């Protein structure tokens, strides 16, 4: 067990290091922007003195390394700075009460996105594994081929195409689910579920296909092994052979692909949230990209990267844990 613990600690340290380097990359990229935050807040007509004053206040006259560590120190404590858009709005109205920090803006939206991802995972994972087992069981049958064509099609379609097709059939022609997901605080759970059902279904279509194909491939890979032949020869039914003998041994690649697909959800969520006007972090990100609200873009980018690294790390660790040769070294 010591051995595994050591490997896992190594992976965790490596993940943390990657995240640190990624934060440097994001910070440097943002600092490639012409002009700086002070000019951006004050706009074109600002006098030299006021720009210099803001620069001093925000610490922008410091060298880049100092600013990076200031920013990083804030991020670690959950302080992502103030958003330009709300700072602008506040300077017009002359009050400071309306200024929202980036963390305040992101917080509730992050929870919404997590909710959407959770709903998707709850639908997609059991569906994908069941379909994958069935396709492996009845391989090369009509069912397998139809499933193959269907999954290839849904993998390769852009998210917005699937989204509009689902809106067309499930919201406009047959009004079952609402096509706009206006979610707010204090909503009943069932209503919330109903409103986020269409985006969750689109994401399900996108990730199920890949997970199902990998499940099928992982199981079929094992079917040539001697112990499967043994199980077959002793008269076990094909379903029992797969569920009792093949599936436990195929678990490592399946868990791996599930985690990787949840990581893929992070990218898919951006487009889907925009289509359904779902108030999540992806939509905030795209809006801030358009208004060039740099602190928000920077924070969202870091959160997406952190989630992505974390899920990849989980996939890595899970596949180590599910490998008995690593768990019980000779």
């Amino acid at each position, binding site marked *: 067990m010591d051995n595994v613990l050591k490997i896992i600690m190594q992976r965790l340290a490596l993940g943390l290091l*990657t*995240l640190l*380097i*990624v934060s440097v*990359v*994001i910070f440097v*990229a*943002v600092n*490639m*922007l*012409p002009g700086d935050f002070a000019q951006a807040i004050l706009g074109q007509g600002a006098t030299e003195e006021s720009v210099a004053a803001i620069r001093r206040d925000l610490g922008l006259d410091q060298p880049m390394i100092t600013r990076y560590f200031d920013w990083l120190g804030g991020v670690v404590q959950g302080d992502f700075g103030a958003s330009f858009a709300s700072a602008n709005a506040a300077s017009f109205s002359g009050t400071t009460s309306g200024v929202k920090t980036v963390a305040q803006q992101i917080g509730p939206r992050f929870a919404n996105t997590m909710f959407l991802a959770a709903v998707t995972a709850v639908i997609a994972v059991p569906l994908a594994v069941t379909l994958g087992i069935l396709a492996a069981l*009845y*391989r*090369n049958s*009509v*069912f397998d081929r139809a499933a193959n*064509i269907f999954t*290839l*099609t849904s*993998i*390769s*379609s*852009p*998210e*917005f*195409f699937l989204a*509009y*097709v689902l*809106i*067309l*059939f499930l919201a*406009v*022609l*047959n009004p079952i689910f609402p*096509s706009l997901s206006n979610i707010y605080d204090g909503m009943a759970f069932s209503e919330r579920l109903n409103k986020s059902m269409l985006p969750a279904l689109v994401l399900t279509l996108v990730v199920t296909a890949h997970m199902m194909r990998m499940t099928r491939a992982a199981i*079929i890979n094992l079917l040539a092994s001697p112990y499967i032949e043994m199980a077959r020869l002793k008269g076990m*039914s094909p*379903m029992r052979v797969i569920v009792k003998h093949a599936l436990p041994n195929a678990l490592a690649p399946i868990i791996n692909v599930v985690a990787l697909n949840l*990581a893929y959800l*992070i*990218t898919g969520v*951006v*487009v889907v949230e*925009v*289509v359904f006007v779902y108030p999540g972090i992806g939509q905030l*990100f*795209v809006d801030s*990209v*358009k208004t*060039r609200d*740099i602190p928000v*873009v920077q924070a*969202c*980018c870091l959160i*997406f*990267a952190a989630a*992505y*690294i974390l899920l*990849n790390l989980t996939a890595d660790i899970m596949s180590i844990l599910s490998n008995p040769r690593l768990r019980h070294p000779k």
Partner: protein
Amino acid sequence: MILWIAAVLIGMGALAWVFRFAGQAATGNAPKFRDMPFGVAYGYVLAALVVGWLIWAYFQGRSSDPAIANKFFFLRIGIEGFIIFAIAAWLFRLAGRRVGTAWSRKMFRAMPLTAAFGVMIILIYAILAIFAGLLAPYGQEQIIPGVAANITPGGDPALGGNLDFPLGTDQIGRDILSRLIYGAQNTVGIAFATTLLAFFLGGTLGFLAATFGGWLDQVLSRMVDVLMAIPSLIFALLLMTIASVWAPRLGIPLTVFMVIIIAVIDSTRVFRLSRAVGQNIVVMDYIEAAKLRGEGFGYIIFKEILPNATAPLLAEFGLRFCFVFLTIAALSFLGVGIQPPLADWGTMVRDLSGFVNYAQFAPMAATAPLLAAGAIALLTVAVNFVVDWMLHKSSGLKE
């Protein structure tokens, strides 16, 4: 509602039992029916019900009552499209088996229908993209004087159509058909150029890392690791934000920045593959022989490694093209990709998407955004079918 679903499921179970029993009785207990598990019988009943429902829905779509016909209009179009494409792919494969060189005829003989469909669609898109200027009835940026905006597709004057514009016009009066055809040139052309650039970058660096090894390999691999730790669409959006500030200052179109940004991000994936493939090849004896002959690195990379790495790289090219194409479409859909007035499918979907909501009353109006989105989907599906077939063929997977 739940009771209904439960009743249908139980009813289907009963039907499945009857089906199996009838099969056993009719065939004198043939092995096919005797050993049939209940789940398989259930599957047959389910499939029969789905096919039956589709046929019923198709004839509902041809109903004379417009309220019912509108409701099933898209399903009808979908079924007709599926059948037409299947027949076209079959005829295309048949033609491919008769004409052409011995090599191409042999290839078509071993081809499944899905791959034939893919090859056919890719050829059609290539022709559209190359001859867009000749095929399109109007210019992509042309606002035709005296023509109303938002003409409905279909060309039926009673429904607000116009025969001169079979797919209608957009919100400022440009011909949608022309813009779709030019979209093939812009969207596909830019995606193709980006993929080529990504392969040039990633392939060269990957082979260099594989042949040199040592510190160069370490430095490049660690850089790629870091770049791959950021989700690609997110990273592309971040860099596009920065590029959109720089582009007007430098006087370079934003599209050029987009091509470079996506090419660099995607070249990391190409680097991974070409390095792995290259490492397998550099340990071969013929590389050793070439090194002993005193050949330079350029010769070894382009004359020894590259020809032996073609098959996996070609399959990867197809997949990479799909990714790049979808990323560009997504960026354009989000409004930061290919910039107007260039016709582009992603932008068209975003501009026309509101029409989906009119589907119940004017189904033709809702087809415009779906056509643009479908054009993207059709090409990626086609490329994926071909790649899937190539991988299957090269892996020799026969199970």
